[in-house]
């Protein structure tokens, strides 16, 4: 168990568009051990969902994915063909999507959809699959599990549907779960319950989890590792403590100033803002993608940006050694 379960090096995703190529994700690296939770946080369009689809081999045919290394438990995903990927998906790696209403099939019962992966991947009979489905529905906290099997998705509330999605992803005891904004559409109370459930189950089954979200509160509470993504690049990575207690990249610091923090931000005071908009990623992107919105930007930001390593496992990309223009005046 010394080598990580998932290792990604220099993952790049290019999308051909009318005016050229959209460099959606540019050279990102990360790895993930069993039992660990990685949170990828970023705003819309930063490429975080594309990254997860790339891992699952679910990108559309026109989208070009390259990587120097992309290994899942020794299996080279860059060379894996459709058959290998189909065998992995739903079995050893599973995905939980954001919208439980659109990602469950309205025409099939909950039971049918739950049992599908197990019947496909494992040599089990219908009765065993049914028993496993009931067991998992109970595990995710659904009462009267047996009667739910014959229900259709529209008969369940949003929170219940999301729990069904989680149960479905867990059917084959996957080693890796990718959850793309699993709680964004839910109430805060349900959000807390679902996140607790995911964290507890992850620990219990020693699963690795990639959680994709834009909610910094979720990240801080759930992540072992955090990756901050901006315009297709990982601008800062580190442990949750490192990224939240000692953020280095100007974008990470800017994001944390934008949200009202109970007990810290004065009520009604002005919140921090990040002016400007995300750059256009069509046609070669050079230098730091954040420089147009950054209050620390200098001329050198147009050139190659060094990788910096302020502490073990803590990395960020910035021309400034401390993330600040002049370290002495640091806030």
């Amino acid at each position: 168990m010394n080598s990580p379960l998932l290792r990604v090096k220099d993952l790049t995703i290019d999308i051909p568009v009318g005016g050229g190529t959209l460099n959606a994700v540019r050279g990102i690296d990360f790895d993930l051990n069993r039992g660990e939770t990685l949170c990828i946080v970023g705003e819309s369009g930063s490429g975080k969902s594309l990254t997860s689809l790339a891992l699952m081999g679910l990108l559309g045919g026109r989208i070009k994915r390259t990587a120097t290394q992309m290994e899942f438990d020794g299996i080279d995903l860059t060379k894996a063909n459709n058959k290998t990927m189909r065998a992995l998906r739903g079995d050893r790696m599973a995905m939980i999507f954001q919208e439980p209403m659109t990602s469950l099939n309205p025409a099939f019962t909950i039971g049918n959809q739950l049992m599908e992966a197990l019947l496909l991947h494992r040599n089990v009979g219908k009765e065993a699959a049914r028993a496993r489905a009931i067991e998992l529905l109970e595990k995710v906290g659904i009462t009267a599990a047996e009667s739910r099997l014959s229900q259709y998705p529209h008969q369940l509330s949003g929170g219940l549907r999301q729990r069904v999605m989680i149960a479905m992803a867990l059917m084959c005891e996957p080693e890796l779960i990718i959850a793309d904004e699993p709680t964004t559409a839910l109430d805060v109370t349900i959000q807390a319950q679902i996140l607790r459930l995911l964290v507890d189950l992850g620990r219990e089954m020693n699963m690795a989890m990639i959680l994709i979200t834009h909610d910094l509160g979720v990240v801080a509470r759930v992540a072992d590792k955090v990756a901050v993504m901006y315009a297709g690049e990982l601008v800062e990575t580190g442990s949750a403590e490192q990224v939240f207690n000692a953020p280095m990249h100007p974008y990470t610091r800017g994001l944390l100033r934008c949200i009202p923090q109970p007990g810290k931000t004065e009520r009604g005071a002005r919140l921090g803002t990040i002016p400007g908009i995300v750059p256009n990623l069509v046609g070669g992107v050079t230098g730091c993608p954040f420089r147009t919105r950054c209050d620390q930007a200098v001329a050198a930001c147009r050139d190659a940006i060094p990788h910096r390593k302020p502490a073990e496992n803590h990395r960020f990309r910035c021309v400034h050694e401390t993330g600040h223009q002049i370290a002495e005046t640091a806030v």
Partner: protein
Amino acid sequence: MSTTETNHPVLELRNVSKTYTVKQGMFGKPKPLKAINDVSLSLNRGEVLGLVGESGCGKSTLAKILLGLEDPTKGEVRVDGEVIGATDRRTLARRIQPIFQDPYSSLNPRKSIEDIISLPLRVHNIGDSNSQDKAVRDILDIVGLPQRVMRTYPSQMSGGQRQRVAIARALIMKPEIVICDEPTSALDVSVQSQILNLLNDLRAEFNLTYLFISHDLAVVEHLATRVAVMYLGRIVEESSVGGLFDTSGHPYTQALLKSVLTPEAGKGVPDTELGMEYPNPIAPPSGCHFHPRCPMAMTHCASIPPRPVPTPEGHVECHLFDSENDHNTGAPLVREGV
């Protein structure tokens, strides 16, 4: 107007109820669904009332009643002391305007920004085209959009810009009250803070009164001056923002506050102890509607509905705070199947 906060409520709800009839199945008997159940509220000029609660608690129904889009089944709504329903929709629309959640679906994609913002003026026949044009230019300045966007269409704008257009459209009628229904929940973090700052500035500049509906308690705490907590059509607690967030009373409010995920590393995900799912509003639990999920529930909570108990800055509906109630034996309720 240079009026600051006065004691005269600009908006008042008196015992408002809204009951829908829901048919269950093709042959099922229609059943009443109490979306709003005897709600009284008052809002002074310049205040921001944060309205929080889970989906299905009646927040949006309340907003619709205030906008005149639904009539209350019982009770009355007063704006500046005048009963609405007696006045017509047009008069009401001049005083209350909405800002909706999703700026992608709330703007007509086939109309230019100028058309979208000036539509209220045209509907109400205010001014000629020259003065309407000037009004649009002025309001664009106020919400921080460049003049050149007048000829563009919503599809050419970012989410934050669209929400600024929605704010401009609401403010062009110079309303007294703005109903903000989750105005920032569809936006990115960095854009959300810009819109919240803008709403705060506009309130100060035009002495606006907001009803701010949101599920994000951190945002409500930041922007609101008063907070009302809704559960199954009832306002179970209402207080000043300090009173509610610093010394919350109702167990449901406490659970909501507990579920806020502040960005603090290493704290883990809180346990709200709410146990069960949100109840079915067609068959609400007996007694206190919250008792099946309440960690503090006592025996009589299941049978006797709590009455509103006045607090220093508002009210709370919970037996724990009702000292005159002789049922208050303090015996804990045994909950099953949590």
